């Protein structure tokens, strides 16, 4: 049962799953659960949209059902299909089970989510699917029921928690947005990013985490083609750790920068810049940051 009685309770539950959210996101997720509305989250790649659904599922102890969208996805991949080979065998063997019964029904993610008494349904990257699929989803999301011609109406005993993510490669239909709560996830600020990194990588030294996070924070201010997400920050911390470094230094930074930045232009730009100064600045800022937090 996914009952949270307050926003704080929800926050704590997700924190125990090492998913740290700011107050805004916590409020919206809480509302989505309480009001039984789907939650549409958008944001830059790597801010933890998909991770949210995963953390929510493990925090509430219910299965996560994931539907990855792509161009051309249709009912047979999203909702249900019939197990044709088995039907054919049954026909040839002269069995008596009706061919279009539950027994030969293959549940795809959406139907699975309706059948489960409790579930978190993640509809990932909906913007990749076609408009027709979105229209179909509309029906599903408003009533949490679907009609299978051969069987009848399937209704969820209790609507699942639905998280929809989109990278905004196209505008989703207004009608769909109206049915959802909406939230835009931003990159975390220094405080939060440090907290996330510490929670995720507890075995790594604190000063390294602080320094790398403040370096990444600076990078996000530059107008890069592809700003690093939290996932990449974690990778970079991990890279330093694996190489046996406990401090951020310009040489290792330069050689491992590919973990953080995935665009050639960005890489060249950072390497061509004054990396020493940037690293020194980050180290300095990390120290200030630590002192401030220590005093608090």
């Amino acid at each position, binding site marked *: 049962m996914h009952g949270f009685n307050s*926003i704080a309770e929800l926050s704590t539950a997700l924190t125990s799953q090492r998913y740290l959210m700011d*107050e*805004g*996101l916590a*409020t*919206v997720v*809480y*509302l*989505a659960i*309480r*009001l039984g*509305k789907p*939650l549409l989250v*958008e944001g830059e790649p790597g801010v933890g949209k998909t991770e949210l659904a995963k953390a929510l599922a493990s925090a509430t102890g219910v299965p996560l059902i994931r539907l990855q969208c*792509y*161009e*051309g*996805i*249709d009912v*047979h991949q999203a909702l249900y*299909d*019939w197990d*044709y*080979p088995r*039907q*054919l065998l049954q*026909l*040839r063997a002269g069995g008596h089970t009706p*061919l279009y019964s539950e027994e030969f029904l293959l549940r795809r993610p959406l139907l699975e989510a309706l059948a489960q008494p409790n579930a978190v349904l993640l509809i990932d990257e909906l913007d990749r699917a076609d*408009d027709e699929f979105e229209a179909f989803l509309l029906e599903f999301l408003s009533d949490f029921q679907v009609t299978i011609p051969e069987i009848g109406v399937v209704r969820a005993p209790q609507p699942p928690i639905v998280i929809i993510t989109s*990278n*905004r*490669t*196209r*505008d989703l239909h*207004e009608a769909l*947005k*109206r*049915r959802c*709560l*909406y*939230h*835009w996830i931003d990159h975390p600020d220094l405080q939060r990013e440090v907290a996330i990194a510490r929670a995720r990588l507890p075995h790594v030294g604190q000063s390294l985490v602080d320094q790398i996070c403040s370096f990444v924070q600076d990078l996000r201010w530059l*107008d890069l*083609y*592809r700003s690093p997400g939290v996932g990449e920050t974690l990778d970079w911390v991990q890279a330093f750790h694996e190489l046996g470094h406990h401090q951020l230094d310009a040489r290792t930074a330069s050689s491992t920068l590919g973990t953080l930045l995935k665009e*050639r*232009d960005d890489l*060249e730009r950072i390497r061509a810049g004054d990396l020493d100064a940037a690293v020194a600045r980050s180290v300095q800022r990390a120290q200030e940051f630590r002192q401030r937090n220590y005093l608090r």
Partner: protein
Amino acid sequence: MRLGAPQSSPDQAVMLAAVKLARALREFGLSASVDAEHTFIRGLAEIDVRDRTQMYWTGHATFVHSPDQHPIFDAIFERFWEGRPLILEEAGSEHGESDARMQGSHHGGEALPQFGGEGKKKTAVDGDRNRGERDIPSAESEDGASHQERGVLAAWSDQEILSRRENLEYQEDELLALRLLAKEIKRQAPARRSRRAHASPAGHRFDVRQTVRSSLETDGEAFRLGFSAPTMRPRRLLFLCDVSGSMERYSRVLLASLGAAVGAARRAEAFVFATRLTRLTKSLDGRDLEQALDKARAAIPDWSGGTRIGYALSEFNSTYGRRGYARGAIVIVVSDGWDRGDPKILEDEVRRLQLQARRLVWINPRPMSVDQQPLAIGMRAAMPYIDDFVPGHDPRAVAGLAQLIGGLASDRPARRIVPARPTGP
């Protein structure tokens, strides 16, 4: 002083405030439907309405549907929270009876000004401030640079200067021609294979589903084998059109053609640029072409300004491009390549654009040979990264565009790998 006390319980005061907030948001172009209002009010019951953050995010989640609506919501919520009048008309009227502050204390919201009625505040809203607020949706209307460069670039435009808005009315026969163009583009648009398959006796993929279905009638004996073939769907067309001073004489028709294309191809996107980039797809989308063109014209802030193709493309690449608007699309740039910016930037951005696009087509209305004009510097910088270069195509020959699109190859062009940047001093 407690006017109408029985019916205005504190909850009602909160509700009333919610409705007012929604109304104000609607006024500024957010789609705060009755549904959303309802959700908002239900949401308020779940949270602590005295907490600004929680209130803010509840409103945000229900009324805001995209990041660009964020600043509008912010501004209005700010006013709402401080209990200031949200809309001019509301400043001195109605709901005088629902001053929630007079009510009992069992609810959280009564002490807050935003849930109080506004009837007692008779102060008229300052005219200037109100005008300022109405400007919120188009915050960056300042653009001095675009006008300074105009003379230089428009110099060789010896013919009709059509950029003045009153001259842009379209005639009935022109609109007819555009509708024909739309039809033609629809017919001619390059296709891509979709993942979806449809039943087709001529197809090459064995279709189990169909075969089983048909063999049900014959007691499981598969007399007829079903086959399917992949469905073809129109490939996305992405137009990036130059409407700067040097392109002035084409702009009018160009815009109209864009309108036709967006109306025709279900997945067409239209952007125009001079000094900066404007997305027109939304303005152009609609049943009525004439209306759509009107809207689009109004949406272009730097009509006939100077050109900074590099910056405009950079803007595209780092916003829409990053989100995948150009992925797998046929990207059609219409520009003469006259660029006031740094050719290096232009080169970099065109290269980035090409890497995302299925094919990058550049239509240059300037014929290369006439008056032996050398290519514009910008054009020369962009050349190595263009898959199809179409020089001397006059966008005013409307019918030609459809033919051109129809003639474009849709397959992946052979590209040589170009080094990111020539290294050197």
